[in-house]
């Protein structure tokens, strides 16, 4: 049982949002739909939720044909990027909404709301209005609200996009822990590859309406199926006609390695513990190479702008070898 999507197409006027998408999302798994803005991932999510209709294709949720069901009959919980909080209701009433619609008893509703507020650490705010909460708190409320009705599937549309970096990191970890506890099939959309790599069990990379690759974070990072996937999931640079990771390049101040290429550091930028070098190679017509080293390495080798260096791809590191375009 799971979410099964087959041959889904969606166009907005002339713009093709989704082009023959087929994917299976197993039950209980935390899946990320990852890709650049405008790639189609939000559209796919909304089609699963019933907030958009596909032009063609089938969708089944837990074995039930869902494409023709309105959102209220699909039993999916949806969390919006901008919270979609019911501004005129208190936090408790927001969370209780789905239960009140289903005409649960007052006692049952109160109990469940208290449970959920406890789960998301918002118990002391139950009588506040959403306007009195911070962004992160509002999103936790939105999550509690979506979970209140025990949905079959939890869908999150760039849930942390509107929050600042620190809160985003906290909530990311928090979502992962929540999923470990609650185990509901979860799908979330993000354009932040770090978020996907950190949180998801499996990632579906979507670009220009098509699936580029499906796999675990490790698979996607170590065995990218295409240049797009490799460059989207992490920094890349070209070395000798291959795409490599900037941190998989060794830097020497003396010509040790026969394979090493000679060049000069033209730019040095320190960001936190990373030091990013731009190396202009002696070789003609080769683009500048981006190399990332640790601060310790930089200090050890006394790297600075203008210094002559020799760079080579680290032994044991893997460059991209396009295996197949879409893995299943």
């Amino acid at each position, binding site marked *: 049982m799971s979410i099964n999507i087959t041959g889904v197409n969606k166009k907005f006027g002339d713009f093709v949002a989704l082009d023959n998408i087929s994917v299976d999302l197993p039950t209980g798994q935390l899946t990320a739909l990852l890709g650049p803005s405008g790639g189609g991932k939000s559209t796919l999510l909304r089609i699963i*939720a*019933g*907030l958009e209709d596909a032009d063609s294709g089938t969708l089944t949720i837990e074995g039930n044909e869902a494409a023709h069901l*309105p*959102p*209220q009959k699909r*039993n*999916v*919980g*949806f969390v*919006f990027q*901008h919270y*979609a*909080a*019911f*501004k*005129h209701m208190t936090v408790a009433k927001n969370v209780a*909404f*789905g239960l009140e*619609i*289903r005409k649960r008893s007052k006692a049952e509703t109160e109990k469940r709301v208290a449970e959920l507020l406890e789960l998301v650490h918002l118990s002391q705010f139950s009588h506040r209005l959403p*306007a009195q909460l911070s962004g992160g708190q509002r999103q936790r409320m*939105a999550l509690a*609200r*979506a979970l*209140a*009705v025990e949905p079959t599937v939890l869908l999150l549309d760039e849930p942390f996009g509107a929050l600042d970096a620190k809160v985003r990191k906290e909530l990311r970890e928090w979502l992962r822990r929540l999923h470990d506890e609650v185990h509901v099939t979860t799908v979330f959309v993000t354009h932040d590859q770090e978020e996907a790599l950190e949180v998801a069990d499996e990632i579906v990379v979507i670009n220009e309406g098509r699936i580029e690759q499906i796999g675990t974070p490790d698979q996607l990072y170590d065995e990218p199926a295409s240049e797009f996937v490799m460059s989207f999931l992490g920094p890349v640079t070209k070395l000798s006609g291959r795409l490599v990771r900037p941190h998989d390049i060794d830097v020497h101040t003396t010509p040790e390695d026969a394979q090493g290429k000679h060049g000069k550091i033209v730019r040095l930028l320190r960001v936190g513990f990373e030091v990013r070098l731009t190396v202009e190679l002696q070789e003609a017509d080769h683009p500048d190479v981006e190399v990332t080293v640790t601060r310790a390495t930089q200090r050890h080798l006394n790297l600075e702008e203008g210094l002559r260096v020799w760079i080579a791809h680290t032994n044991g590191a893997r460059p991209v070898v396009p295996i197949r375009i879409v893995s299943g």
Partner: protein
Amino acid sequence: MATSTYTRDPAPVRWGLRFVTISYVVLLVAWPTALVFKNALADGVGAMFDSFKDPEISHALFLTGYITFFAVLINLVFGLTISILLVRYDFPGKRLLSALLDVPLSVSPVVVGLALVLVYNGRDGWFGPRLESAGMQIIFSTPGMIMATVFVALPLMIREVVPVLEELGDDQEQAARSLGANGVQTLRRITLPAIKWAIVYGVVLSLARSLGEFGAVKIVSGNIAGQSQTATLSVEETYQNFEQGTSYALAALLAFIAMACLVIVAILRPKEES
């Protein structure tokens, strides 16, 4: 709101603007209205209420109240429905409809009245004869007056509600749907409470406008004192018949009611937070 200390207009400009604004409000609005009240109360409050006891006047007041009540009610229902339709749905001809809905504000009410007479009059109107033979008289009777009043006040409700609906966005409504609410539940629990103050303002403005309607109602009603004459029409008639005292009293009453509504709403409305 904190005052900005970044760049302020120089003092003469600020005071100049304030002077212009205040002069405008005083000369065109405040002073004439104050004079109406002054003249109405010139012979004392008792005399003012006595003039209302005249049977023709009290009928006019009753008729105004009756028409205003139904006009505001119809505007509430229609205005809300059309606003939701315009903002949340797409259909061919939507932009045309939107433009047409502003017509009552730009067209002279006299023209409105005349148009209604042309369509609904009992002798040679489009619908009039048929309706009259079914027992419904529109022109020279209360239904026509209600229609005229509804027409001129309709855009007011829509113009209050539409911007608020647009700014609200439909995220909340989508969230409600995803939680299991159907269309009616979403409307009742989410949409209407969210726009409640826009609706209240729309009602108040419709009320004030309906109370004060003159031209359209005059043509449609036939202006027969004691029968189809509203308060505003009475103001004109009594003034022309040299019964200025009554005229001022009625005018003051109408102005007072409209202002009272605005004041009540201003007091009731909680402070907006941006």
